[in-house]
């Protein structure tokens, strides 16, 4: 243990999660596992065209089918303003059900509810839609050309001066700049300038979106669904349907993965509307094909980047243009990519320009550290090239330029205590870094950064009459947050974590909280839990003081017991359970409620080492070894921290090697299933070594930093750099699938 670090009794241990047994026995209820008596089944009609005008919809034939109870189109939705918040509700409403135009293959145009799923499917076939097919555009660069077909005829590029006269598919131009670019490049002894492309990839959670909605005669709505935030679902549904927030109650199901893909609504408003129209509960479950056609993805991109360094390795300047596909509506994470790509480095002169570009693909959704893996892929590859040109070890080159406490992030603020250097030093000392390599094998290194979020969280800690404790969380538990929150409550109260039962509450039983996303739950909701537990301790001390007849200031709380301070007479320590049992006689129930807006989320850094072997005949890349080093602040439950890192690495490897949504020339997705959209399977991967560096976040009571997102950032470049080391071929276009790699290897040999 590091000097000065607090000794913990619960934090840092690895108990079995409280919700675990339900999840290994099949008892846990996920989104699609819920049903109600009299329930109808809903289905969604989706556009067969990537871009078309909707001239008319005739549902009369569908309604003639016995068992069909309701059909809705965008005409049933109120027309919504964009609003001032971060979510554009005009877009959201049109993404849920197309109005006037369909903007991607799979865009929802109508929904039905019927007594069985089969009848609902047959009814969808009988809904007649008249389309005027329009030219469409898939590629981000083509979409930017002046004669490209326009998705939104009234969209003018924001961020340009003067304001443009003609509409464009470019929603926004943004820029981060500092220093003097020209001067910076003039100082450089070596400069590399390259282009990179990445394809649309899907979050690929295993559980499809699912919802059951029930409306009552009193106008009250109850929604059961799996999402990354039931308060978000409530707000979004209320807004797009024109209901009061208080009319909607959302009960969270267990969530079968999200990775950012469940941070918006697709089905929930449709199910509510169909329930209102039919007077019956309505269930809708997406098929995997619908998931691929109409949800997610993370953007495809093109990046041109230029990086200069002096002979000693000092990075002097960076210039980059990033073009991201927003999909059908604006909102790609291109700004986040600009903000994160150079965050690990102290480059004084830079200009990073991002373009958010609409194309005829589904509206992009968040995907784990949104934008960061794409920007980092470019920068971390360039750094690898510079390291080779300068003859400097790639870890040493990064160390030479590493951001540190006090250095200024490209996006503005000065870093407080961060652990980037520690991740580099740990990686350099890792045995994998020196493991000998054989023919066709190579090693790559890359680093990554993510902000991590704070935001609004609520929590309650309730003491039961027998001294067990309930921790009430507002956040769906995607990866073990219940047990992490319970560990923090147990730590504060000084009781065993088995005596603490964490629960996830619905929108009516706990205060508002922001999404499960941004790696924020263990940090921000964890802070709320710690504060709530401290409120409970105050009450426990007051009760003990009352029982003993001494002043509360004289009562200490230590390891689960109230103790009378020196000179307050002879009293046996009172356990939490003893105080709880007598609570009704000392003032009533003991509980603590806290709502906060957490500040001081601390950024996370990671450095990964990847060893590959390339089969030169087939272009197949095998991951031989992988080590992920990350500054996690403080691991509350180390196993789940390791799990986050391993899962992020696996997703990053999939992104690097295989995953891409393939659209044909008409904008039709050609691989809407797990057979052809190939995510890593067990036989594709080795064990993934994880090394947790703990540089405490000074603003969190236990030093927690978010951990869930950083691990997907480095793998793209780590894999590509390893492939270069193995083959001598630089792969700057993802994914590095076998046919592409074979082509590149052939090109190298013939050229």
């Amino acid at each position, binding site marked *: 243990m590091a000097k000065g670090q607090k000794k913990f009794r619960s934090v840092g241990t690895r108990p079995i999660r409280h919700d675990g047994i339900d999840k*290994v026995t099949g008892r846990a209820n996920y989104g699609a596992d819920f049903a109600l008596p009299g329930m109808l089944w809903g289905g969604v009609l989706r556009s067969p065209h990537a871009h078309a005008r909707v001239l008319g919809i005739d549902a009369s034939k569908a309604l003639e089918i016995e068992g069909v109870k309701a059909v809705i189109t965008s005409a049933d939705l109120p027309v919504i303003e964009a609003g001032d918040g971060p979510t554009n509700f005009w877009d959201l409403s049109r993404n849920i059900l197309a109005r006037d135009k369909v903007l991607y293959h799979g865009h929802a145009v109508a929904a039905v509810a019927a007594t069985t799923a*089969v009848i609902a499917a047959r009814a969808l076939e009988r809904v007649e839609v008249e389309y005027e097919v329009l030219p469409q555009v898939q590629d981000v660069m083509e979409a930017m050309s002046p004669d490209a077909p326009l998705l939104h005829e009234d969209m003018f590029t924001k961020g340009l001066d003067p304001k443009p006269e003609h509409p464009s598919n470019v929603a926004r131009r943004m820029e981060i700049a500092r220093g003097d670019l020209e001067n910076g490049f003039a100082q450089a002894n070596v400069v590399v300038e390259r282009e990179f492309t990445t394809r649309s990839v899907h979050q690929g959670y*295993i559980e499809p979106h699912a919802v059951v909605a029930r409306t009552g005669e009193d106008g009250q709505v109850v929604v059961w669904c799996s999402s990354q935030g039931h308060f978000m679902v409530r707000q979004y549904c209320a807004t797009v349907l024109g209901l009061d927030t208080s009319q909607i109650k959302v009960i969270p199901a267990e969530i079968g993965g999200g990775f950012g893909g469940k941070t918006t609504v697709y089905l929930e408003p449709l199910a509510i509307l169909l329930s209102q129209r039919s007077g019956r509960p309505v269930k809708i479950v997406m098929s995997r094909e619908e998931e691929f056609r109409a949800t997610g993805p993370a953007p495809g991109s093109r990046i041109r980047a230029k990086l200069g360094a002096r002979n000693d390795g000092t990075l002097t300047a960076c210039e980059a243009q990033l073009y991201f596909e927003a999909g059908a509506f604006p909102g790609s994470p291109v700004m986040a990519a600009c903000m994160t790509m150079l965050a690990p480095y102290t480059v004084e002169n830079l200009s990073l320009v991002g373009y958010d570009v609409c194309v005829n693909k589904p509206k992009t959704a968040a995907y784990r550290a949104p934008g960061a893996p794409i920007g980092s892929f470019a920068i971390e590859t360039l750094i690898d090239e510079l390291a080779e040109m300068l003859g400097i070890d790639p870890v040493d080159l990064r160390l030479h330029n590493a951001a540190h406490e006090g250095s200024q992030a490209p996006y503005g603020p000065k870093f407080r205590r961060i652990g980037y250097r520690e991740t580099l030093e740990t990686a350099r000392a890792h045995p994998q870094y020196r493991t000998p390599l054989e023919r066709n094998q190579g090693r790559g290194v890359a680093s990554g950064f993510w902000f991590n979020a704070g935001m609004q969280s609520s929590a309650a800690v309730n003491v039961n009459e027998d001294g067990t404790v309930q921790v009430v969380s507002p956040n769906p538990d995607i990866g073990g947050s219940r047990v992490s929150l319970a560990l923090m409550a147990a730590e504060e109260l000084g009781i065993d974590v088995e005596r603490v039962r964490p629960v996830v509450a619905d929108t009516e039983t706990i205060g508002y909280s922001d999404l499960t996303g941004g790696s924020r739950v263990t940090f921000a909701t964890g802070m709320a839990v710690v504060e709530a537990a401290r409120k409970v301790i105050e009450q426990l001390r007051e009760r003990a003081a009352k029982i003993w007849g001494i002043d509360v200031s004289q009562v200490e709380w230590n390891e689960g017991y109230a103790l009378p301070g020196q000179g307050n007479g002879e009293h046996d320590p009172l356990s939490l359970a003893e105080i709880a049992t007598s609570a009704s006689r000392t003032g009533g129930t003991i509980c603590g409620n806290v709502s906060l807006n957490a500040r001081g989320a601390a950024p996370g850094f990671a450095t990964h080492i990847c060893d590959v072997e390339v089969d030169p005949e087939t272009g197949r890349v095998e991951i031989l070894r992988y080590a992920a080093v990350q500054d996690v602040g403080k691991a509350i439950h180390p196993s789940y921290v390791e*799990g986050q890192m*391993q*899962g992020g690495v696996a997703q990053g490897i999939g992104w690097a090697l295989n995953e891409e949504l393939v659209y044909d020339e008409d904008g039709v997705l050609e691989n809407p299933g797990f057979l052809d959209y190939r995510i890593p399977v067990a036989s594709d991967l080795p064990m993934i070594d994880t090394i947790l560096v703990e540089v405490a976040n000074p603003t969190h009571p236990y030093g927690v930093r978010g951990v869930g997102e950083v691990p997907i950032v480095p793998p793209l470049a780590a894999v590509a750099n390893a492939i270069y080391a193995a083959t001598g071929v630089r792969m700057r276009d993802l994914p590095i699938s076998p046919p592409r790699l074979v082509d590149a290897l052939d090109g190298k040999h013939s050229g």
Partner: protein
Amino acid sequence: MDPKTHVHTHINGEPVEFLSEAYRSLLEILRDELMLTGTKEGCTTGDCGACSVTLDGRLVCSCLVLAVEAEGRRVGTVEGIARGETLHPVQQKLLEHAALQCGVCTPGIVVAATSLLERNPDPTEREVRYWLAGNLCRCTGYDKIIRAVLDAASELRGASPNVLE
């Protein structure tokens, strides 16, 4: 109304009857008619393994089996793996290794892994990886799942745990 067939089967050792149209999958009947929702649906095309069950002891994707094919056969689902309150070692080890994050792939992994250990009590890491290659997990990167299955195997054999390390 489409015609239905009366199907007689055993599920987790108990006699069960149901009616099904010819086109419905065993997965649909298990989940939507029999309320055995422990078996999950991730794709309905045989690609994810979330719907894994055993049919006469053989591991299958229940989304690819027609419900009427269960006539006269034994179906095993995740709900039948634990004995009363005692978890199967595979379940226990998955918990101890924290080998689930969201947990939606877990029922399929539990069924597939117990099926593996029944026929191969001493699998290598590679054998476990290939056997589970049909069970997609997007959360864990498989590392802890593989360790848990190997650990369960050694416990079942009565050997000392910790095959790796």
